[in-house]
C-alpha cells in the first residue's frame, strides 16, 4: 500500500461552488500535503458514485481515505457507512463536513470558506495519520444474570430473563420471595389480591434456568461487565459467582413513625404497613367484626419534611385503597384522610380517588406548619386539625389513626452501588441514567429496578423489572449497536510511560482504571466508555485513546496554526 492519501470531495451537485472554490482548495491541500490525491464526485449520497470511489481506491491504493461531504447528521454518516462496506478494513477512513460546517455558514465569505475547507481537509488527513486502530479481544459475556432481591421487580425481571433463555440467579435476603408483597393484601388501583399476584410472579421463576437463593445476601461485586464476580453469603457460607450482568432490585424499607402523632403511645395509632397486615387478616376472616366506628388517615408522616424531603409516591394511593377496603368491610365507618394534596396522577389513580370520594371518604387538606394532633387516653380518641383551605378547626373522633409513612432507601445499597459505579441521590436512592435510561447504571451490564431507585407502585415495579431484564438481555446479546464517532474507542495505558500516580484511577467515572501489580494503571476495556478523562489528566501521556489520541488532536491544532501563518 502506498503512502498516498486520497481525499474525495463531494461537490453536492455543484450547489456549493458559489462558496467553495474547489481549485483553490485543491491547490492548498496539495501544497501542504503533496502525497494527497484529490478527487471530486458530484453526489456521494446517491450512491451512484460509489463504484467510482471504489475504483479510485483500487487505483490509488491509499493509506487513508478522507471524504469531504456534508454533516454526519445530514447524509455524511450514511455515506461513510456505505463506504466502509466497499473499502478494505486496512484503509482508515474519515468524514469531514464541508457543507453544514463550512460552506453553508460562510456564504458571505467565499475566500475564508475555501481556506477553511482546505484546513478542514488537512485536519482530517492529519487526524488519520495519527489514528491507531486497536483490536480488542473480547470474550463473550457470561450468559448469566444476578438479580438481587426477589420482590416484585426482581421476580418480574427473573421471569423475562429466563424466558429469553438466560441463566438467572435470584438472590433474596429473606426466606420467602415476594418482598413487601407478602405484607400487603390488595394492590391498587385494581384491588387485585396480592397473593394471587405474587402467585403469578412466582410461576415465572419456576423455570429450569432460574436458581432461587433464599437467605442470601450479596456482600460485594467486583469484576467487569460481562464478567462480574459476585460474592454471596448464605448463612455464613461465602460463595462467589461469575455473572454477565447484575440487576439490582433490592427495594426499600418502610419508615416507622416513631415518636410522631403518638405512634406506639396510644393504642389504635398504627402505621399504614400495620394496617395492611390487619386488613389482610380481616379480609381473610370476614366473621370477626371491625370494632371501630371511625378511622383517620394522616398522610405525609415523616415525609416531605426536612429529614426526608421527598414524596414517596405510593402512600396516597395506598391510603385511598385502604380507606376503600375499610369502607367495604364496614360501610358505615367514617373514614377521613388528612393530606397535603392527594398524589393520584394519571387515569387509574384519579379514578381511585374519585371512587373514594364517591364512597363517602372525607378529605381534608392540612398545612405542614399546622399539623393534625392526635388525642386520647391510652387509646386514640380524636384527631384535631386546621383545614388548610377554610382555616377552620375540625375535631374528628378516631378509633383508628393510620399514619402513612414513606419508603426509605436500604442502607446496604451504598456498598453495592459503589462496586457497580452507580450514584446515589441525596436521599440515598440509586440513580440510573435519567431520563431516557432510568434503569441503566453508568457501567454497562448493571441495571436497577423497583424501589431501590425510587418508591414505586407494584405494577410499576413489575414494569421496571421487565424493562431492566430486557436491557440486561440486550447487553448480554452483544450490547447495543450504537455506533460511536470514529476514533472513540477504549482508552489504554502505555505501561512503560505510566508513573503510577493514580490520577486516572481517581477521575475515571466508570471505575475502569485500576492499579496493576507493578503499580502502573491498567484500563478495563469492558468498563471503559471512551470519554478520555484519563488521558486528559495523565501527566506523562501514558493514558490515551489510541483511535483519537492527543497526538491526533495536536496534529489538527498544528494544521490550523500552520495554515494561518501570515
Amino acid at each position, binding site marked *: 500500500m502506498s503512502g498516498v492519501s486520497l481525499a474525495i470531495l463531494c461537490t453536492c451537485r455543484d450547489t456549493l461552488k458559489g462558496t467553495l472554490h474547489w481549485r483553490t482548495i485543491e491547490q492548498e491541500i496539495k501544497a501542504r500535503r503533496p502525497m494527497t490525491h484529490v478527487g471530486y464526485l458530484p453526489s456521494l449520497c446517491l450512491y451512484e458514485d460509489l463504484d467510482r470511489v471504489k475504483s479510485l481506491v483500487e487505483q490509488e491504493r491509499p493509506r487513508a481515505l478522507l471524504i469531504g461531504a456534508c454533516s454526519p447528521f445530514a447524509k455524511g454518516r450514511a455515506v461513510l457507512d456505505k463506504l466502509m462496506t466497499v473499502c478494505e478494513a486496512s484503509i482508515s477512513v474519515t468524514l469531514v463536513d464541508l457543507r453544514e460546517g463550512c460552506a453553508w455558514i460562510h456564504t458571505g465569505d467565499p475566500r475564508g470558506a475555501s481556506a477553511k475547507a482546505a484546513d478542514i481537509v488537512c485536519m482530517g488527513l492529519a487526524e488519520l495519520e495519527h489514528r491507531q486502530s486497536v483490536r480488542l479481544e473480547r470474550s463473550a459475556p457470561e450468559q448469566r444474570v444476578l438479580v438481587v432481591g426477589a420482590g416484585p421487580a426482581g421476580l418480574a425481571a427473573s421471569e423475562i430473563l429466563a424466558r429469553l*433463555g438466560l441463566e438467572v440467579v435470584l438472590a433474596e435476603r429473606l426466606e420467602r420471595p415476594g418482598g413487601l408483597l407478602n405484607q400487603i393484601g390488595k394492590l391498587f388501583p385494581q384491588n387485585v389480591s396480592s397473593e394471587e399476584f405474587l402467585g403469578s410472579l412466582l410461576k415465572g421463576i419456576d423455570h429450569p434456568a432460574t436458581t432461587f437463593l433464599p437467605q442470601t445476601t450479596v456482600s460485594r461485586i467486583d469484576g467487569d461487565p460481562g464478567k462480574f464476580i459476585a460474592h454471596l453469603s448464605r448463612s455464613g457460607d461465602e460463595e462467589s459467582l461469575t455473572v454477565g450482568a447484575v440487576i439490582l432490585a433490592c427495594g426499600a424499607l418502610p419508615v416507622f413513625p416513631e415518636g410522631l402523632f403518638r405512634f406506639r403511645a396510644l393504642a389504635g395509632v398504627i402505621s399504614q404497613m400495620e394496617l395492611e397486615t390487619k386488613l389482610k387478616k380481616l379480609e381473610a376472616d370476614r366473621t370477626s367484626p371491625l370494632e371501630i366506628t371511625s378511622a383517620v388517615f394522616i398522610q405525609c408522616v415523616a415525609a416531605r419534611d426536612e429529614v426526608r424531603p421527598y414524596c414517596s409516591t405510593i402512600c396516597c394511593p395506598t391510603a385511598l385503597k385502604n380507606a376503600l377496603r375499610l369502607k367495604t368491610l364496614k360501610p358505615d365507618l367514617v373514614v377521613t384522610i388528612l393530606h397535603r394534596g392527594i398524589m393520584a396522577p394519571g387515569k387509574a*389513580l384519579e379514578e381511585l380517588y374519585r371512587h373514594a370520594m364517591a364512597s363517602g371518604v372525607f378529605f381534608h387538606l392540612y398545612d405542614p406548619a399546622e399539623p393534625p394532633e392526635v388525642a386520647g387516653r391510652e387509646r386514640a380518641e380524636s384527631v384535631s386539625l386546621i383545614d388548610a383551605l377554610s382555616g377552620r378547626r375540625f375535631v374528628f373522633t378516631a378509633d383508628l389513626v393510620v399514619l402513612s409513612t414513606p419508603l426509605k432507601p436500604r442502607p446496604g445499597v451504598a456498598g453495592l452501588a459503589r462496586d457497580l459505579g452507580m450514584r446515589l441521590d441525596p436521599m440515598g436512592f440509586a440513580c440510573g441514567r435519567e431520563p431516557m435510561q432510568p434503569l441503566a447504571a453508568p457501567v454497562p451490564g448493571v441495571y436497577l429496578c423497583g424501589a431501590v431507585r425510587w418508591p414505586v407502585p407494584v405494577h410499576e415495579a413489575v414494569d421496571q423489572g421487565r424493562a431492566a431484564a430486557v436491557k440486561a438481555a440486550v447487553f448480554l*446479546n452483544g450490547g447495543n449497536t450504537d455506533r460511536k464517532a470514529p476514533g472513540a474507542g477504549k482508552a489504554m495505558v502505555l505501561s512503560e510511560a505510566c508513573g503510577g500516580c493514580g490520577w486516572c484511577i481517581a477521575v475515571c467515572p466508570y471505575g475502569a482504571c485500576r492499579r496493576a501489580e507493578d503499580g502502573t494503571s491498567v484500563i478495563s476495556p469492558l468498563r471503559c466508555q471512551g470519554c478520555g478523562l484519563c488521558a486528559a489528566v495523565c501527566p506523562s501521556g501514558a493514558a490515551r485513546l489510541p483511535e483519537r489520541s492527543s497526538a491526533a488532536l495536536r496534529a489538527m491544532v498544528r494544521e490550523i496554526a500552520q495554515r494561518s501563518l501570515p
Partner: protein
Amino acid sequence: MDSSKRSDSLPVLVVGAGVCGLTAALDLARLGIPVHLIEREGHIGGQVMRLDKLYPSDHCAFCPVWTDGAACLAHPLITVHRRTSLDSLDPEPDRIAAVLKVQPPAIDPEACIFCGLCRAVCEENGAPGTITMQPVGLPWDPAAPPVPVIDSALCSRCRECSAVCPTGAVRPDWLDLSPTTLRLAVADVIFATGFVEMDHSPLVEYSPGSHPDVFTAIDFEAWTAEAGPNAGLIRRRSNGAQARSVAFIQCVGARDQRFLPYCSAVCCMHALKQARWVKRRLPEASIAVFFTDLRSVGKGYEGYARAAAEEGVLLVRSRPGMVFSLPEQNGGSTVAVRYEDMRSAEVITAEFDLVVLGGGLALCPLPGASVLDAKRSEICGFCREPVDVSQAVVQGSSAAAIIAARLIGRKGGRQ
C-alpha cells in the same frame, strides 16, 4: 445469540415512534427481532421533540431522544415508516395482518440533498412559506435529514421547484396522491401512540383563542424555547414586549367531568419547569402556578417543586374560574385571571402578561386494538396511562420484554 443473527420470527409492529415506541423497537431489534416502526408524523421522536427541556434535570429534550432515533433509523432490523398510520388489523391464527396507509412524500427524502434551491425559487416566485426546510422551530428532528416540506394548501403546483432540483427529488404532483396501502404480516403489535392535546375551544371560561397571550403549555414551550422563534426570550405574542408576569393554570380540561376526567400526570411538573426557566431568565417577573393538587410525584420531583417555590414561583392552590382580556391604557391588553383564594374566600382578579394553560393531554386512541386479544398486543406509554418520559421508556422496554419473551420463548429459548 448473536446480535447480527436475525430472528426467524415475524416482525413486530410498533405503532408510534415517540420515546416509548422508539425504546420498544430498539430493545426488540437488539434482541434480534425485526420491527416495523410506524409514525403518523413526518418526524420521529413524538411529542418529546416538541419540548425544549426535560424536568427534573432541565437538560435539552431532543438530545437523548436523538440518539435513540438515530439508532432506530440505522438498525438493520428496524424499518421506520414515517407519515404512516394504522388502518386496520386482522388477527389470524399465527399472524396479524396489518394494513397501513402511507402518505408518500412530495420530496423524496432519499434523493434530496437539502440544498434549499426549491425553497429559494419558491420564495422568488412570491410564495414564501410554501416550502419550508425542516426544522422550523420545534419540533426539530436531528435524527432525520432536513428534508424540506411543501405546504399542499399554499402550493400553486407551478412545478418550478421540481425544475431546479439538482437530484429530481421534488415532485409536487405527489401532493395530490392519496395515501398508498401497505400490508404487513406481523407477530405482535405494540401500541405506543402517546397523547394528543385536547381541543381547548369548548373551554369557554378560558376564552380560548381570544387573546394572543394565552398559550397552551406545549405552544408556550416552543414560543420560549432556546431553539424556538424567540431564541429563549420570554416575549408576549400580542406586542413582542418582554413579559412581566406569567400565570400557569393547571388542570385545564383535565380532572374535569366534562372533558378528561383523569389527571394528565405530567402537567404540574411541566408547568413548574417552565415557571422555573421563566424565573431564571426574568428574575423580576412575577410567576404564579394555579394548581389543584401539585402532583410532583417521581424521582427528585418534590425537590424540584420546592426549588421552584424557593426561587420565587408563587404556588397558588386554586382553580381559576375565568380568564379574559383586559384592555390597557396604551391600547393593548393584558390577560386577567379570576380565581378564588381558598384561605380568604375572596375572589381575586389578577392581571398577567402571559397565561399558560396546562393539562388536557388526552390518551391517543388505539386504532384496531380492540380486535386483538390482550395476549397479542401490548399497550405502553401515555396511551395506556398518563406518564412522563422516564416512565414511558420503562413501559416501552417492558412491552418489548413481554413480546420478546413470547417470541423467543416460543422457539424454546436460545441455543
